[in-house]
């Protein structure tokens, strides 16, 4: 269509694409929007412009141009080619009247008719954004999931949604904490006394301005998660949570233990979602041979505490407290940890059950040295941790 050099951007003098093509492109933009691409009106307009900019003799150029315009993250990038092919290379493409009724994904899954899915997208909802529907459903389901015990989540298909919310939770925590921090320390103020003192060497001219220093007050976190057999319905979710926290807070370290302590911070930094899942499942699977909480904490105190734990560190221990080791040792190690750290919090998933009382020997020994002993069996209880961190 256009081989001419195109120096002026957004120029009206450019060859306008044929109306038919423009219509098809706008329709394609609606298709990708229905597939959760982040595109708006401006993108529709620019998509038509893309057709005018690229060399239409080469069909790949339109694909590449639209891909660059319409995608906005790696997931979009992976999906794009499939959508493009579906739309532009369907048989008798020109003859078929295309209706953008919903995403391809949804249409497919609707056809498979998952039992818990709400009404499948109808062909007639042309005018209304199908995402609205999805969002509403998400909100109501979310309420239910927030309160349900993690161990029940594994029985149904909520696992995936739950995993994502757990990770998001950590990011939200960081955002809220940062905001609080910023409000408290908005604007850097001149430190008048020091500025005047320094000005003496310049004959009374305040040449060097000194400011009140802002102190970074984000807490430093250490998460120690029990992955022994008795915890295995929960540990996977806590590892996801740990990953979210590691992602969101810079000074964070994570460990797991069963009979011995293993640092997992670097493992949790894995970017590749698929590999991460494999690794997490592998770590969370748990090993036989009992749980040695006391010895694991001893190892932590001996090898890592000096480096990681200081007066602004909050240590989270996630465990059900069923210890096959000596209770006295556990009590002693928690006490030593408490002396070094700002706060020691024990999250116990079993505490969420009505019939549970912390009577196990190890748990009893640890209790007097804890700042907080809290349940952690569902999303709601994890959210409460944020308030804890905020009281800094």
């Amino acid at each position: 269509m256009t081989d001419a050099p195109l120096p002026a951007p957004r120029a009206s003098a450019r060859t306008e694409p044929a109306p038919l093509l423009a219509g098809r492109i706008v329709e394609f933009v609606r298709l990708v929007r229905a597939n959760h691409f982040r595109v708006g009106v401006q993108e529709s307009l620019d998509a038509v412009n893309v057709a005018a900019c690229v060399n239409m003799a080469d069909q790949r150029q339109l694909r590449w141009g639209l891909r660059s315009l319409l995608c906005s993250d790696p997931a979009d990038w992976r999906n794009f080619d499939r959508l493009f092919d579906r739309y532009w290379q369907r048989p008798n493409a020109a003859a078929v009247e295309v209706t953008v009724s919903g995403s391809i994904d949804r249409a497919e899954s609707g056809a498979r008719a998952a039992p818990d899915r709400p009404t499948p997208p109808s062909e007639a909802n042309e005018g209304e954004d199908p995402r609205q529907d999805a969002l509403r459903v998400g909100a109501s389901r979310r309420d239910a999931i927030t309160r349900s015990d993690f161990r029940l989540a594994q029985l149904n298909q909520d696992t995936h949604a739950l995993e994502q919310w757990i990770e998001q939770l950590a990011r939200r925590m960081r955002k809220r904490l940062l905001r609080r921090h910023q409000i408290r320390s908005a604007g850097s103020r001149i430190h008048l006394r020091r500025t005047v003192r320094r000005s003496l060497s310049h004959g009374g001219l305040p040449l060097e301005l000194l400011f009140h220093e802002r102190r970074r007050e984000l807490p430093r976190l250490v998460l120690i998660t029990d992955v022994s057999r008795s915890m295995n319905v929960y540990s996977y979710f806590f590892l996801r949570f740990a990953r979210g926290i590691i992602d969101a807070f810079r000074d964070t370290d994570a460990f797991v233990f069963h009979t011995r302590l293993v640092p997992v911070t670097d493992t949790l930094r894995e970017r590749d979602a698929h590999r991460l899942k494999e690794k997490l499942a592998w770590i969370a699977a748990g090993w036989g041979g009992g749980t040695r909480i006391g010895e694991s904490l001893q190892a932590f105190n001996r090898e890592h505490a000096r480096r990681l734990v200081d007066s602004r560190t909050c240590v989270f221990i996630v465990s059900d407290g069923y210890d096959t080791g000596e209770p006295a040792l556990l009590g002693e190690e928690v006490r030593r940890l408490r002396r070094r750290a700002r706060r020691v919090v024990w999250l116990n998933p079993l505490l969420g059950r009505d019939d549970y009382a912390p009577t196990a020997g190890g748990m009893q020994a640890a209790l007097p040295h804890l700042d907080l002993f809290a349940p952690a069996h569902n999303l709601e209880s994890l959210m409460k941790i944020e308030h804890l961190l905020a009281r800094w």
Partner: protein
Amino acid sequence: MRVFADTDELVNRLEHAGYITEQGLAVSLMLMSQLQRPLLVEGDAGVGKTEIAKALAAAYECELIRLQCYEGLDVNAAVYEWNYQRQLLAIKLQETEKSSLAEKERHVFSEGYLLQRPLLQAISRPQPPVLLIDEVDRADEEFEAYLLEVLSDYQISIPELGTIKATSIPHVVLTSNGTRELSDALRRRCLYFYLDYPSYDKELRIVLARVPQIEERLAGQIVAFVQKLRGEDLQKRPGTAETLDWAAALVKMRIRSLDTNPDFLAQTLVCLLKTREDRAAMPPSVTARLLAQSV
């Protein structure tokens, strides 16, 4: 500043600047100036995200302005700052002058006392430069929001001076490593390109272009080995930059083929494996297997 007729010419120019790429990226780069949108490039470390901006500046024959983002990056470091010391000196010098207070104030808050930082520099050049905003995911959310505003309107308001409009619209390239999730608004504003690890052919061309003294046979072996290595379970997969380092090292050490001295070769793997865990994960037996497959 050059204008390119089509993507082939742009690809050639980029290649001339030492950046081997495919047409897909060239289309994105063309659209960048046609639609006046920034380009967001994502991909693993070492795949050549930052190089795009450098090569683009070379291809356009224009200036490259770089803004490296980090946590705590603020307006003072990224946009502008007043030259406080000079202002104070000027006030002192003006003490005896008879001009009014308002005039004095206007004087010390004039452009002569303004220190331009990368963003302001980029929009106030007579020729449009390439503006590289590197690792934007490291900056805080509030800076990202500010950036979005600048990238949509191409104007910066300075309370004491008024609004400064862009004299030329820069070509903006943003890179991200995925340290933090970027806002939807910024993603939507940008064109997007996901830069993957190069294919065998592309990487071979890159090595041949960037390490001129290398023989084609050795280059082929090196690339095959690195491509195999990326398939292993590593914490940090070697990027193109690492391949080039390794190739240059082997050329310097006058190695003609990878199979001549496997033990010695294992020592040079420091160019590719950058963490202790990865070194431990690649014992000699594994590297020997990979070597045998790639020779």
